[in-house]
């Protein structure tokens, strides 16, 4: 559990965290979070996102593309 998760409630918006997309397979992607954890996420809602983009992930689903690369895993 990283710092973000430790202070967050999963039903609340602030549990969302940023992750950088590393690879894409259909509607799913592998992404790396700010703490270096690799996760599988659904990217149905970020049709323009590509490898190298930062997305906001809430409960395993990317809900938005972050305008600038905010994190460096």
């Amino acid at each position, binding site marked *: 559990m990283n710092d973000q998760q430790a202070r*967050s*409630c999963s039903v609340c918006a*602030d549990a969302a965290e940023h992750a950088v997309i590393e690879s894409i397979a259909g509607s799913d992607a592998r992404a790396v979070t700010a703490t270096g954890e690799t996760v599988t996420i659904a990217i149905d809602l970020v049709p323009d996102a590509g490898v190298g983009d930062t997305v*906001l992930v809430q409960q395993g689903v990317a809900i938005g*593309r972050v305008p600038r690369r905010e994190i460096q895993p």
Partner: protein
Amino acid sequence: MKYVDEFRDARTIRRLADEIAGLVDPGRTYRIMEICGGHTHSIFRFGLSQLLPDNIDLIHGPGCPVCVLPMGRMDVGLAMAEQDGLIFTAFGDMMRVPGSTGSPLESKARGADIRMVYSPLDALKIAQENPERPVMFFAIGFETTAPSTAVTIMRAKAAGVGNFFVFCNHILVNPAIRALLDMDDMRLDAFIGPGHVSTVIGCEPYRFIAEDYGRPIVVSGFEPVDIMQSIAMILRQMKDGTAKVENQYSRALPWEGNPAARAALDLVFETRDSFEWRGLGRIPHSAYAIREEFAEFDAEKQIGVHGQTFPDPVEAQCGDVLKGAIKPRDCRLFGNACTPETPVGALMVSSEGACAAQYKYADVTIGSTD
């Protein structure tokens, strides 16, 4: 950690505290509501209130979905959980939320099949792995969590999953803000807007707060510098006599939000005529229901519920805290009958609840009723 450190920098926070002190008019008070439970948590965690002038009062708003869920909805969900063969799935933060007959964890102890999931997609996977059993997901949250549920329902339909059901408790932030602004006994001067809800809905939907009610709103990030900077931006507006929507969180939040996420919400959900909020009563058009086109996944329609629902316990003063009428420690149960270990009111259950946050970070003496 790059960027996080920068937004927790003590010198920057002190500089902003000085700027805020210079912006306030000592002859008046300022009641600023942070809408999001994540902001509430950060304010307590970093002791930000102590850095503000005494005449700035931060009101902790209804932005914790667990906290505003009426006990009756929990009762309905737990009644579903006790149906033969049903697998009840929910986020970990829901496991200790009390219904009138106990929490999901207590139902599990009584034999119900209660499973914690990280994502609604995990619940769908459980349904696909157990095709002979109904699987229900207890969906809860604002416009940030609703897209995850929408995607899951869309994937369930595409895959033809027939044993997956969603108990929809998704709520909407702006109808609640409007309801608060319309209350005769509430005085709110400005708002710190929710950063991640806005990732989905964008900043435009808040315009009514500025234009119809003349209140500034600054959408904010979650780090201490973000929140202090947002307060300074609010005070600058108030000093200039203006009221507008500003985006402090522009490094992560596009002004327009995410149209694709909103399209998914529109596809799967419709707004209910009204919905009950703990402490706030029924608020018109303040929650989602699953559209008829996806009714096969609607637990309220597909799973017969015979449970009896009960109102919230009257001894807890969650509603008064949610409206900012009292501070958490002013509740008669705070720190004695109601603690994070034995929560009576929902504000003590979730880590984002104002009571849980104050209890954890304010060095409360257990048992004190003063």
